[in-house]
């Protein structure tokens, strides 16, 4: 069983999708600058992430990808209860076939430290097949993802309540050993867009 490593004053946000009848998700970490948070603040974060995703990323993905909800889990306690959620139920905006579910564009997140500690990244699914040539994502989709994820830095500071939430890159393990609490740094954006490779998520395939 996975070890629970808390994130002080932090939450995990899952963006949940359905692709080919299979549930998949992307995870982000956020920290609250002025604890303790309250219910409206958690809902503000959930609604904010949903709005960002449906504005900046989802319109450029295949309509075979359906984003169903955004959910926020309190990552300060081992039971990590769901504390807010936003129903999305919106399909991607491109009327074209998606790449297979085990194909994703990998967007790595930068933080203030060097490269030795494990960084966070998103495996973006539902990329239209036309945006991938053999193994190379198109410049267009890389530009869109770069601009979209970069926008999340500023968007986060405008989530309700203003200037309280912070998008962070978190690390739960150090040298293979679980930390007492997750180490985090403010996310500084993504890797250069030319370094977005194709990656794979084989567990996203139907069985």
């Amino acid at each position, binding site marked *: 069983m996975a070890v629970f490593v808390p994130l002080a004053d932090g939450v995990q946000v899952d963006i949940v999708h359905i692709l080919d009848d299979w549930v998949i998700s992307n995870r982000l970490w956020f920290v609250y600058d002025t604890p303790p948070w309250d219910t409206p603040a958690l809902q503000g974060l959930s609604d904010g992430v949903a709005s960002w995703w449906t504005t900046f990323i989802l319109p450029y993905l295949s309509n075979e990808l359906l984003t169903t909800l955004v959910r926020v889990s309190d990552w300060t306690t081992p039971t990590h209860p769901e504390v807010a959620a936003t129903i999305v139920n919106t399909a991607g905006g491109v009327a074209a076939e998606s790449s*297979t579910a085990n194909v994703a564009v990998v967007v790595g997140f930068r933080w203030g430290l060097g490269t030795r500690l494990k960084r966070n990244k998103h495996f973006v699914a539902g990329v239209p097949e036309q945006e991938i040539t053999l193994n190379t994502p198109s410049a267009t989709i890389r530009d869109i993802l770069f601009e979209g994820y970069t926008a999340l830095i500023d968007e986060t500071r405008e989530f309700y309540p203003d200037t309280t939430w912070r998008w962070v890159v978190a690390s739960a393990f150090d040298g293979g050993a679980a930390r007492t609490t997750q180490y985090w740094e403010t996310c500084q954006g993504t890797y250069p867009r030319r370094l977005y490779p194709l990656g*794979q998520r084989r567990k996203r395939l139907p069985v």
Partner: protein
Amino acid sequence: MPFIPVPDVALIQLEGRVDGCVTINDLYFEITGGGITPVNLQALCVAVEAWWSANVIPALSEDWVSVRVVGTDQGSATGPRVETSGGDPGGVGGEAAPNNVAACISFRTAQRGRSARGRNFIPAVPNSLITLNTLDPTFITQMTDAYNELAGPGTFLAGWEWVVASRYTGGVARTTGIAIPIVAATFTTPYVRSMRSREIGHGA
């Protein structure tokens, strides 16, 4: 890793390249009525290369190209090795799915357990033959028919039988590997599968 012999068994490696990455598919054949020699190994290699070229390559994307077919005696570490040249591109004039996307065909024997099953991850499936995650039924039939041509004692090539080779059991190396005849090839799912080592940046 020590060499584990599999007596009277030859490994045939079907090597190709797509987007700069090597793809390798392994097939094993057991010889009956005599040992493996360079001559009978070469005959097997030529026959498998002809089968591959006639039955499988035409269904692959033109992004893939055959490099060579290599045959190796698995009976001893110093046994014969032969190869035939490739060069044929895939026969479908359309883009291949990314390298990690493959069609997985399972090889079944009359026995149960992991030692008694094999598989091939068929590379360079044309995008036109995949709908989201699902392989075109025609492609599945074509591959199943092709691989089933290999099954049966002496059916494919006199003196040889297509087998699964097993060198480990329960995670422990066998002293001598065993060969189990394959009776059928089949797809267990219509969905594509992943071959991580073929991703750009992995493998050769």
